[in-house]
């Protein structure tokens, strides 16, 4: 590769066909309110972590649903589980539990070493 001075870029498209959505399925089963999210961003706006670091609970939901799991794992650690997000959610999504379940799913999955 060195002889060309560049590498073949990886696409940044979400490949829905090949992504692993087992984490999302794990959460859907145990916390059906996860399906009701309409991506309004209320949770992210009120989030302490989100105001101080690059963390968005809204985006995290999307990334879980699309199976962008590497990014989810990175992001999950930042949540302090304070639960303020639940208070503002207009769709009654148990947002805090989604973070808990996501961590659980990664721990249980052989594919992801946590």
């Amino acid at each position, binding site marked *: 590769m060195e002889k060309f*001075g560049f590498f073949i870029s990886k696409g940044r498209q979400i490949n829905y066909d090949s992504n692993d959505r087992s984490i999302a399925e794990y959460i859907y089963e145990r916390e059906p309110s996860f399906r009701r999210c309409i991506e309004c961003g209320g949770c992210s706006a009120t989030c302490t972590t989100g105001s101080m670091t690059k963390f968005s609970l809204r985006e995290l939901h999307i990334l879980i649903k699309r199976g962008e799991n590497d990014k989810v794992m990175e992001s999950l650690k930042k949540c302090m589980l304070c639960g303020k997000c639940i208070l503002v959610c207009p769709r009654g999504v148990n947002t805090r539990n989604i973070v808990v379940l996501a961590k659980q799913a990664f721990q249980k999955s052989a594919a992801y070493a946590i």
Partner: protein
Amino acid sequence: MKQEGKQAIWSEYQKEIADDKYFYVRSCIRQNFFPGSEVAFLRILRDVLKKDVYEHPCHTTCSGIGYHSDVVPVETAMTVVARQFALMTEAGYTNYVPSCITSFGLYTEIIETWHHFPEVEEKVRQKLKEATGREFEIPGNLAHASDIIYKFRKEIAAKAKFKLINKNTGEPLKVVDHIGCHYAKMFPSKGVGGAEYPYVLAGMIEEWGGQVIDYPERRHCCGFGFRQYLVQANRGFSVACSKEKFESMKPFKPDMIITNCPGCPMFLDRWQYVINEMEGTRYGQNGEGIPVFTYEEVAGLVLGFDPWDLGLQMHQTDCEPLLDKIGIEYSPEDKYNTTVNSLSEKHSSLINV
């Protein structure tokens, strides 16, 4: 795939293409990339179809390559283009035929801009006059060189020595057509068949016996994109675009790719070599690459031109597998033999006027 759906769209995107007396302007880069192609165009137009094609020795770059690489401002590009039009006007021609897709796109864009902003055109006329003393007319007909070959595809088929058919199986060759982005994406109405389902190359393929392959990434750019390639650090992006296309067309087992842009055949051809070097992947059959051609090369092959006169030895992905499939004879020992007679000696038609 329902062919009639495409035919309905094709019938909506028909453009006027002049039938003779062409002012032909070459591309900056094609003469290095695939030097036989423009020569083949002239031979087909002048020798085979007996058309009047004029080339002006003072023609320069249209500066589109600079414009699209962010180094030439559009006003400058316009004045350069105005000068080319002046050369056409002075030579007494009105049908302007660029060899390059980006030139075609730039000319279309500039003529359209002048149409909507006549004050810009006036300023350009003034600047050109001040700088060179020249005056110009806007071409009566602007067609890309591939439009011209498309227009005469039936005449070429009538004189064809070969068809795009696998001589061993009798089956039509599976052909991927790749259209340069600047052909119709900017102005769909200026391209034969429009932007979504361009017919300019598909029409040639059908007429010459091949079968057109419509694969998911058909509309994707080849990856040239000017600054992607020109800056070395961006080349990974460029090659990734080509790779995306190869991956997508692979299941269709294409026999060949045909293109109508200067950059596309270059990158679709060369990147196959690079991808193979980097990752060990080849996209054709039997561990080979997929041969990539310009439409002039394909027209030339169909008409029975010598493959080495067409410059096929300049391809990095070998063309011989395709020549064998069609049954075109060639002399392997002459492939790189530069002592064979030069083309200009063989073909007086290549000398202007």
